């Protein structure tokens, strides 16, 4: 393959190690993991979209799963850490998505021109629209003060498109609880947004 700048080859820390540090409440691990995942998710998103042409709508759950597989394949992540990983990946994906949406907004207002860009544009009735995404993103900062676990559920379900089974496993609760949490999150978010 012809290489091109941007292929960052800095040795990456072990994802599993980072997850362990996280469990030990090491805040700096969050930032490291974020940087690692952020770049990766963006890259995967780009290449996926580039490969499929521009008519494709990209299911975000594909992104986190692909990132997961990639880290497993290079030996940086334990298979056993899957749920834990998905939870953090979902949180990172929220930033990726929001940044894309904001960037697009900036471009429409005549900001910087980036050659290839990603967007969360809606094809009729599929997926969420830009405004909704930004609104939900901001409302989540309020929700974080009310019930942090709900934020995780929303990130996993809405931003990362994960299934209830996966979310339940990641949070260590039952699927029933996830369903109720999701219901509660939607109600609260709708309320926050309509206030």
């Amino acid at each position, binding site marked *: 393959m012809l290489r091109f*700048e941007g292929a960052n080859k800095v040795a990456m820390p072990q994802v599993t190690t980072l997850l362990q540090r996280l469990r030990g409440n090491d805040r700096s691990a969050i930032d490291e993991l974020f940087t690692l995942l952020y770049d990766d998710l963006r890259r995967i998103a780009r290449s996926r*979209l*580039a490969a499929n042409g521009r008519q494709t709508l*990209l299911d975000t759950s594909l992104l986190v799963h692909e990132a997961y597989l990639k880290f497993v394949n290079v030996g940086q992540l334990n298979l056993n850490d899957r749920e834990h990983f998905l939870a953090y990946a979902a949180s990172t994906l929220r930033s990726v998505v929001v940044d894309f949406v904001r960037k697009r907004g900036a471009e429409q207002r005549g900001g910087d021109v980036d050659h290839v860009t990603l967007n969360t544009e809606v094809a009729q009735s599929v997926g*969420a629209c830009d405004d909704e995404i930004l609104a939900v993103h901001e409302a989540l900062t309020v929700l974080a003060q009310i*019930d942090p676990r709900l934020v995780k559920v929303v990130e996993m379900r809405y931003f990362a498109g994960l299934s209830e089974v996966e979310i339940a496993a990641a949070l260590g609760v039952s699927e029933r609880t996830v369903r109720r949490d999701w219901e509660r999150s939607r109600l609260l978010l709708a309320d926050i947004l309509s206030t």
Partner: protein
Amino acid sequence: MSTKTAGFDVERWQRLNALLEQGLSIDAEERTTWLDHLPPESRDLADKLRGMLLQKGIETKEFLAQPVALQQIVQKGAQAADAAGANVGPYRLIAELGSGGMGTVWLAERNDDTIKRQVALKLPISHWIPGLAERMDRERDMLAALEHPNIARLYDAGVTETGRPYLALEYVEGESIDSYCQTHRLPVRQRLELFLQVTNAVAHAHARLIVHRDLKPNNILVTKNGEVRLLDFGVGKLIEDESKASNREAIDDTPRSADSGTANTSLTRITGRAITLDYASPEQIRSERITVASDVYSLGVVLFELLTGQRPYKLKRNTAGAVEDAIEAQDAPAASSVAEKPVARVLRGDVDVILAKAMKKETGERYASVEAFAADVKHFLKGEPVVAQRDSAIYRARKFVSRNIGGVIGGVVVFLAITAGTSIALWQAHVAKAETARATQVKQFIASLFTSAVPRTGEGGQVLASDLLTSAADRIEKELVDQPEIAAELGSIVSESFIKLGVPEKSERILEFVLSKSTLYLEPRNRITLSAKRNLASVLRARDPKRAEALLDDLMPDAAAMLPSTAEDLAQAHMQKAYLAARRADETSAVENIQRAVDLAEQYFGKESPQAIQYLGNLSNIYGVFSRRAPQLQAAATAYTKAINTMEGSRPNDDLINAETMYANALVANDRAAEAIPLLRRVVEDRLNLDTLETHRVRNARSSLANALLTSGYLDEGIALARKVVADELAANKVDSTDRILLGNQLVRGLVVAKLLDDAATEVARISGVAGQLSELTNLIRDVRLARLFFLRSDVMSAETTLDQIADTLNKYPAENIAALVVRAEGARLQNDFVTSKVRLDAALAALNSVPISLLTQANLSTEMGRYFLSRGSFDQAADHLNRCRSIYDRLQPSVSTLAADCYVGLAQLHLKAKEPAIAMRLLSPVVDAWSRVNPGNAWHGEALYWLSRTQAQLGQTVSADANFARAQAMLKRSTLPAMRELSRAKR
């Protein structure tokens, strides 16, 4: 939105949240009552709650119902997002190769049919620049004239009608030089040689007044053949802003003032390509004139990184200013101070000085040209004085002495050389004398090896053979520079000794050395060159198969011409070639070559000679690689019979062990694993007796035994043995190895069969980062197994993605393809997705006609077919398939193991339906026993127990039935698999 909290305080939302949680947990029809009886302090939220709980199904039904999806959008204006098939200027885009801050690169071809050739089309981000088109035309002609084997051609550059610049470059498939050095673990010498290819290319361009300006590892690719290709020559200049570029010509730029405005613009540009800055010279940072000296500097940084694995300036790339300061102000550290120990030893001294000279801050103090830089690197490689070194008599004398210690034994000579500085004369005189003293010197040299040997790794003051050999190899290279014939001869003895000692990898350097000397100084056809080539090929086999094969092709005509004395060499070469051909899946060539080795051995050494037996064993092994099971067994049986005839009395015997192993492996491949077990037990015993230590050969023997045990269903012993082998390998070999992966794969296989999924996952993680040299088929089998592991963990997405990624390779291996389809069918069944399961099974059946598959795969296929029909209520068809898998397992396994669980459990269900609980009981109890032995409490154990309890109920054993039912429920509930969870909810 951000001020929402102001209108509705958080505390109130928290109360709302708590009430909501409560309200949602009660049944819908009781919520009205609950709302009516809210405690007084919560009454203020009653209306809100009522709205949420009672209307939620209507109003918010669509809200957030769809998760986010990303879509690429089309840019407005000229720079629309590109897509395959689109045209840019005269090019049609084929596929995106990469993208970054500077733009994108596409694989493309001309759309006007003038020349059919694929190019890498670079599409830089660029605002429209006046006069760009003219400038591109002008420069294109100059750059397109740059023809050199190590430079990727620029075919075309231009601007489309919409003002978009493009560059068409030669499409190079390769790896960047830094990662190439790393993945191939090149020794310093070869890194330097690779670097010399780079300097050749740069010097060629400089001679044509073209400066690269952007030399960095990412722009220097190495092809599969080890050839260097420089990318983007002069491209940096091409896409630069016209207003700046007009002031600069290719080489003779006029100096630019470093006024702040210009510097800033330039920095912004450079920091846009963050990595590039690390290789930029101080004058580039300062936006001053760029000359060949700038390329010399960048090459210095590149070489520094190649040799040490680090960049000279280490900083956090916080601000552009910090990097700028570092490059302008800091001196680069000595390369030897940052490199790892063994490398540092080599770098200390000459290489440190060479690099320092290349990376001087002042252009005038650097090498005047790339050639001068390259010349010093060559001096170093030859052990000659480097120009960059201080020009001192002491330095030269030391260099002389170190080159001549082999001959210069008297201290007087050394003393004279240092003090008088008449080194050259002395050296010449010495060379003349050396000719006559040759024989004596060899003797002295060998003697001195022993007397001067210092124990390094040996215990209790004992010198290990490998230490001795290592120091011998070092000294031969250093001290016998002037006696190439002797050096070659001794070197070849040392290398053979390394190989006999079981550390062939240590012989590589000395073999390269021997070869370099023997091809130059010895007659064209000689045994030393021949065996050096053969041995080097063997050492390089895994890492550089191309070169290995080239060496073999090279030596074969010579070896054939020198028969019969070279029969062994020639046969060995054919054998090695066979394995190399097998690695690239060339069955015809592999079989031809190994058959030729057999023929040679039989002709020159006899039909029952150890050599003939060995190559017959290899023949069997090669057939095995290509899944030719019948000829595999036939060749192995022939070899084994001959080995028993001639060597049975001399146990433990290497050749007999090998023949026995091959035969046992062939038995396993031919579904006769149970027969192989006693043979392999003896192999392990003999091997231990022979090697006395836990060598890798012992591990391999145990691994073969573990394989036979696992295949025969002796899971407990098989897994335990596989675990032991992996642990032994880890203990013995700190370095990652191919063995590590193979043994790990084997363990994973056992663990998956035993459904010890967490252990399997841990082992997969442990081996997946290991770099090894495995065949495509081995990797394929591993990936299919990984997919199965994902399925069993209910991670369908990862499983399917894994299989999708290997789809193309699977098509090449029909038997594995069928196995993968069965894995997919099983995965779907466990999700209760019987439609998908059937689709996969139909595909497997369709592929079955033409392909011979192993009994185990046939059993798996029948199991899944049977379980499918069972789930659809087609009991007659289910019975056909399940009886079939049962008969296969009964044949393969002396006693029932968990391998057969899915088949037996399915069959038991049929018999329950037929009200034959006694038969069901006979099928289920061994399965339940097997699970309790291997992995008690897992979902499959639960499944078997569940059906056992149903059986017991039918038999009227209600007490046992109740107990087992409860146990089964507990096991099944923990599973994430829908099929298992459904069973956990099943009523009595």
